[in-house]
């Protein structure tokens, strides 16, 4: 049977196209325009060509922010993925406690980013916060407002607290979809716990873990609110990741050309990761 082609459906997506055009395409075009010009305000612009791109690509400040961004993302992934899988494996498969665990896991995900930042800011303050005061009381020197290592530790801990649940829920969904017969067969063969994980659970979780890794990669790569509220990018520049640096350049220094060039480079990185995410997911579904 031939498919009926009805082009009226295009009108149904027209409102979405108009909204996307207004809130994404037009601002993006403006950013591209700004990225090749300089301005001192009053809508007076001077053409600069690719100067800002060359400057950004050669700037140590950008390299630093990019390096910190990748370090943060890599650390977050290295902790959250194994931890999320471990928690999912430890959770009960059914019954009352399974529901309790799921609700508890979902709770951090429901808290807005700026609230998480504010919460951890108070929690980690060295003089009144439970974490900060407790660590100092134990003799561990800790002050996230003064020491870069403490600031990093707090940012990572905060992200792990906020987002490991997402990995847990995805891994748990993957585990739930495994047929009971696989476990019975493994039991009959006398397979060890590790062998069950390595040859049954991990391959079955492959696709959800791919999604988890890519989601966490993208989210942590675009992270802004939480570290901004917690540390404001400090002490010094130690927790200034790409997005924070971008806002500093655009709004703090009103350096629109540099900020626009940074935005485009940042956008291209995100676009590449999105494309990889989409491609891997689609190829995975097909296979």
């Amino acid at each position, binding site marked *: 049977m031939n498919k009926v082609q009805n082009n009226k459906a295009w009108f149904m997506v027209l409102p979405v196209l108009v909204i996307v055009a207004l809130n994404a395409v037009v601002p993006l*075009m*403006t950013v591209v325009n700004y990225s090749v010009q300089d301005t001192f305000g009053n809508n007076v612009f001077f*053409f600069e060509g690719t100067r800002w791109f060359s400057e950004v690509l*050669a700037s140590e400040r950008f390299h630093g922010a990019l390096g910190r961004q990748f370090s943060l993302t890599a650390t977050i992934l290295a902790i959250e993925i194994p931890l999320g899988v471990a928690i999912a494996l430890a959770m009960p498969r059914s019954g009352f406690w399974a529901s309790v665990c799921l609700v508890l896991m979902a709770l951090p995900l429901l808290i807005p980013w700026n609230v998480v930042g504010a919460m951890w800011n108070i929690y980690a303050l060295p003089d009144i916060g439970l974490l900060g005061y407790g660590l100092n009381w134990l003799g561990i020197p800790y002050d996230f407002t003064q020491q870069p290592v403490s600031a990093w530790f707090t940012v990572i801990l905060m992200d792990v607290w906020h987002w490991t649940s997402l990995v847990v829920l995805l891994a748990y969904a993957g585990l739930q979809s495994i047929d009971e017969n696989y476990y019975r067969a493994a039991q009959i063969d006398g397979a060890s716990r590790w062998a069950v994980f390595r040859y049954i659970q991990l391959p079955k979780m492959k696709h959800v873990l791919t999604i988890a890794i890519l989601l966490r990669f993208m989210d942590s790569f675009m992270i802004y609110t939480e570290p901004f509220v917690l540390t404001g990018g400090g002490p010094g520049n130690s927790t200034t990741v790409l997005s924070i640096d971008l806002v500093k350049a655009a709004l703090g220094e009103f350096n629109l050309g540099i900020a626009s060039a940074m935005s485009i480079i940042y956008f291209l990185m995100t*676009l590449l990761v999105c494309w990889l995410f989409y491609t891997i997911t689609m190829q995975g579904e097909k296979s």
Partner: protein
Amino acid sequence: MGLEWMAWTWQTATFFIMIAVFLIGMSIWEMARPGGDPRTGVLGLDTTRGDRLFISLLTSAYIHLAWLGLATGPLWIATILSVIVAVAIFRWV
């Protein structure tokens, strides 16, 4: 509402017009001679013509950035490189 705030230049306008021309051209090509189902290329990816255009544009953006960051010659060399890579992508990817 004027468009002064968007700070248009003829160079950036040409850039966006070229992308629009690519999209319209691809649509006309698709209507005239449909590309059919995705095909598997040398990278093992299943791609349609639209996917190949996207990959070509993204690759060309990275080639230009790499040129600006690493090389010292004129930028049009990066553009020529991008065109060669795009042809290769359309042919083999």
